[in-house]
């Protein structure tokens, strides 16, 4: 017991020095590092493409179109998975949700349902599955990693149960096709959707009360509870968003290809998590930004594209992304440890 004598005064901490260089500040800001990496990569690509336009067709209209068509699917998945990661949970099932909801939509449209209703149904199913995963995770007190690993297998099986191992054609008519797969002001509609959703997610996560609760829940669950935030509700909402965004990604992909393969989407959940990690999201929750998620998805596809243009064999791509993920995660945790000061 130390109560008899007046306890020693805790020394006033010396004022911390905040004279870090501008570059250091930028890099340790959320999404700062990836912004720098992304701009450097773009600079290198554009320079090389200008010097050797015949060898490296990065800036050709055809390549840019391919790139813009490829990004939104992963991007939308990553937005949903990212908000959930910031809330402190993982979703490994988004690739399966993406396939299941797309198959349901395509089968329903083939059976005569209005494509807009079918798309609404797909999103509803995605949201419902997300809520179910969240509910099981919280109710049973399990890691979401395990619950959604179960989801990954279960819903992939459900695809085959629902419609067998056959490809489904998707022919929604011109209005639907134009809205989700057409071209507007020279830019692919899917990319417009991704841009619009990124802006919406920015406001939701960084400017709305809900976003503040998401960060609080993932950053310090017991503090959030102690201050009166219903962390269970926040997490379930984040699971629902992840499921809904997976279904939306499925719609974009299905319109683009014109059909659904029952085996598609394998590995997409890991790519989405990779995009988030590369974008600076913490694996333990509470840290990250929409700009980071956006750039993470862009970066993965830019690198994929560059390696394809350089005619590098496919395994280089996997190895490159792997190095990027581990490097980004190590970098994030370094920044976080510094932040705990």
């Amino acid at each position, binding site marked *: 017991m130390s109560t008899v004598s007046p306890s020693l005064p805790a020394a006033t901490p010396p004022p*911390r020095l905040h004279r870090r260089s501008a570059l250091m500040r930028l890099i340790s800001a959320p999404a700062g590092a990836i912004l720098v990496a992304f701009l450097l990569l773009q600079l290198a690509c554009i320079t090389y493409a200008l010097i050797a336009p015949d060898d490296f067709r990065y800036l050709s209209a055809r390549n840019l179109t391919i790139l813009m068509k490829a990004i939104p699917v992963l991007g939308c998945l990553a937005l949903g998975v990212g908000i959930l990661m910031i809330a402190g949970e993982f979703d490994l099932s988004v690739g399966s949700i993406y396939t299941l909801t797309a198959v349901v939509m395509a089968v329903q449209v083939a059976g005569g349902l209005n494509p807009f209703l079918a798309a609404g149904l797909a999103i509803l199913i995605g949201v419902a599955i997300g809520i179910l995963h969240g509910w099981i995770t919280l109710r049973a007190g399990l890691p979401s990693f395990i619950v959604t690993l179960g989801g990954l297998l279960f819903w992939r099986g459900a695809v085959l149960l629902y419609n067998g191992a056959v490809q489904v054609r998707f022919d929604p008519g011109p209005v639907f096709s134009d809205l989700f797969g057409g071209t507007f002001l020279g830019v692919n509609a899917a990319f417009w959707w991704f841009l619009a959703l990124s802006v919406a997610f920015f406001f939701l996560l960084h400017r709305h009360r809900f976003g503040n609760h998401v960060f609080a829940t993932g950053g310090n669950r017991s503090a959030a509870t102690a201050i009166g935030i219903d962390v269970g509700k926040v997490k379930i909402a984040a699971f629902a968003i992840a499921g809904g965004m997976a279904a939306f990604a499925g719609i974009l992909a299905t319109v683009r290809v014109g059909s659904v393969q029952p085996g598609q989407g394998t590995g997409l959940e890991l790519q989405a998590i990779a995009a988030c990690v590369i974008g600076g999201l913490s694996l333990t929750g*509470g840290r990250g930004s929409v700009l980071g998620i956006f750039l993470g998805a862009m970066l993965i596809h830019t690198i994929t594209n560059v390696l394809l243009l350089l005619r590098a064999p496919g395994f280089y791509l996997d190895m490159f992304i792997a190095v990027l993920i581990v490097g980004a995660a190590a970098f994030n945790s370094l920044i976080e440890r510094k932040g705990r000061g």
Partner: protein
Amino acid sequence: MGRPILELHNISKRFGALTALRDLSFHIGEGEVIGLLGDNGAGKSTAINLISGIHRPSAGHLSVDGHETLFTCRNDSAEAGIETIYQNTALVDSLSITRNIFMGRERCSAGGMLKLAQMREIAMEVLKSAVHISGIDSPDMLVGDLSGGQKQAVAIARAVYFKRRILLLDEPTSALSVRETEAFLNQVLKLKSENVSSVLVTHNLYHAYQVCDRFVIMSHGTKVFDVPKAQTSIGQLTEYVVMT
């Protein structure tokens, strides 16, 4: 002192096999400052958390203004006018000072969009007036970048800003300097003059003796002594805390 506004009646709290609170009863009067004292592990924080609605009692009940109540979550206790500084400060490292102060109680427009500029201004104001702490130069700093004392200052600012009837203060000064602690104790007295009651948990009996009107001493999860300041001395309090 004024009439009791919050009473604990025969509260017990078990965590599995461990009994953290045993048949604990005491009351908090209007405008009264209570020193909740006791050795580490006596159950002070458990009592504070229970009054805050974080834990539910295993037995016994609470009354607010004479009416029996059950707090099932933090929002219930907030509704009863209770505001808490938790021993672990309950702050989120990855959020700014402003966002921590308004966490869960954000100032929003109708659509739920944050009024960041307004909250920032209030945060700056309360940080300056509630605690005079050095080294916090902007409410945009991340809490994770603050020292232990600065974090405590943020927790204090938050509680002082949202205080209504009862402040629960669980070792709020453990990382503060002498000057900062003095300022904080004066703040407690000022709030008392505004008829805000407080429960102050501290290991420093001199601090407690300086501001408290009554002392409740706990040992092994129950109350062993409950005495007004006029009828006791630091020596006697020390004896009770150490010997029981």
